[in-house]
């Protein structure tokens, strides 16, 4: 599996650290209720198919990426810098 880093190009999966579904981009407000925090920390859609996920290019440029990857075929259909991803 290779991931297309917008800065470094196609790179081997071994260079990346996986953080999971890209929920960190919509962190609840500090005073949000327990349900909102459960949702954010624990509950996941986790359906087969396309998933937006956070990967860090640890052994490369160090950028955090939002990668759209199919969880059935592992095919990657897009990657952008997390800093540029809109909510």
């Amino acid at each position, binding site marked *: 599996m290779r991931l297309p880093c917008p800065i470094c190009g196609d790179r081997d999966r071994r260079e990346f650290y996986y953080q999971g579904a890209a929920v960190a981009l919509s962190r609840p407000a500090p005073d949000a209720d327990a349900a909102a925090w459960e949702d954010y*920390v624990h509950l996941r859609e986790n359906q*087969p198919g396309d998933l937006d996920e956070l990967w860090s290019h640890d052994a490369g440029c160090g950028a955090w990426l939002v990668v759209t990857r199919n969880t059935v075929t592992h095919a990657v259909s897009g990657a952008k810098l997390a800093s540029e991803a809109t909510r």
Partner: protein
Amino acid sequence: MGFDRLTKGFSGLRVLKEGLTGNKGWTPHWRDPAPKPEYDIIIIGGGGHGLATAHYLASQHGITNVAVLEKGYLGGGNVGRNTTIVRANYMLPGNSEFYSHSLKLWEGLEQDLNYNVMHSQRGIINLFHSDGQRDGFARRGNQMIAQGDDAILLDRAGVQRELPYLDFDQTRFPIYGGLYHKRGGTARHDAVAWGFARSADSRGVDLIQQCEVTGIDIENGAVRGVQTTRGPIRAKKVGMVVAGRSSQVAAMAGMRLPIESHILQAFVTEGLKPCIDHVITYGMGHFYISQSDKGGLVFGGDLDMYSSYASRGNLPTAEHVVEAAMTLMPVIGKARMLRSWGGIMDMTPDGSPVIDRTHIDGLYVNCGWCYGGFKATPASGHTFAHLLATDTPHPVAKALRLDRFRTGRGILDEEASGSQHNLH
């Protein structure tokens, strides 16, 4: 309901009789029934846990108007893909009594099912490689003894006596000792599925294969039945027992679960003469190994570490596992690897499972087994059947609650790494 062991069940006498009469008396293990319009209880998922639930519903609670709906074939999921380790070496209250209960059920399982599941208590040795790790394992061993199970702390010489073929002085992780759990071991995974299936079927449970659940019918907050590829089926109660596909099935009831599905790989070599007598785990290298009764060395390691619904893994993890194998026991380099495969794991944030009701009346959930649900198969079925039959949690499973992730009370984090996805 006992078997007539000479004419129907399995026994030495029966093998002798069939051997002498041309083996013409063997019959299929279970029927192939068409779904009825309605059941008291529907179990979604014909893996180990679903089939065990059906067995205990029938044998312990006398509830036999039950269907197990399986989208593929019985035992085609994780129950037939795992590396078959059975142990009771958990530490936290909530987990420890559950797995302790499970190991006791394993010890009587073959008699209970009248089926040879090849349960082999060959002993498990968890290696450690530092003073800190030794302290951790000593504590775990004490907890295991306190819960009524067995544990022996081996020093380096003790491990050398049991496992002389390991490389004890590897530069990175020299072996200091091991925690030896003698009642731990392995079982033949397929036979476990078949044994539970045969028993449930013989008691009247309908095992329906090639029947995928595609919807869950809910009216006024109560479950009414399911939609399937073989038509709608009504039921008073429905249990979801679908391991790696738990989120997919729960979504049919509008639920989101604290689960990410990940891929775990396993590997097997060509058959060899007996050489590895125990189960060995090498946590520092993410590697564990045992030898199957056919002679193949069966081994595995860590998750591939990304969400996946593909029942196959990628090369980086395979390479990592093989490197760890070569580090721990260079002798394995002589063996030829035959096959590798993967299974879809239902990973929870705290690494522990869920056996509970849902907020929908009559809908129950059994999930979150991570990479350790095979050893749990008897207790999972036993306690889930209890919950379905009586609507109260079984005492040894009452900590396995779904709401612990919302309230934060009773999080069951064995590794103390935090209740967060991708840490277990």
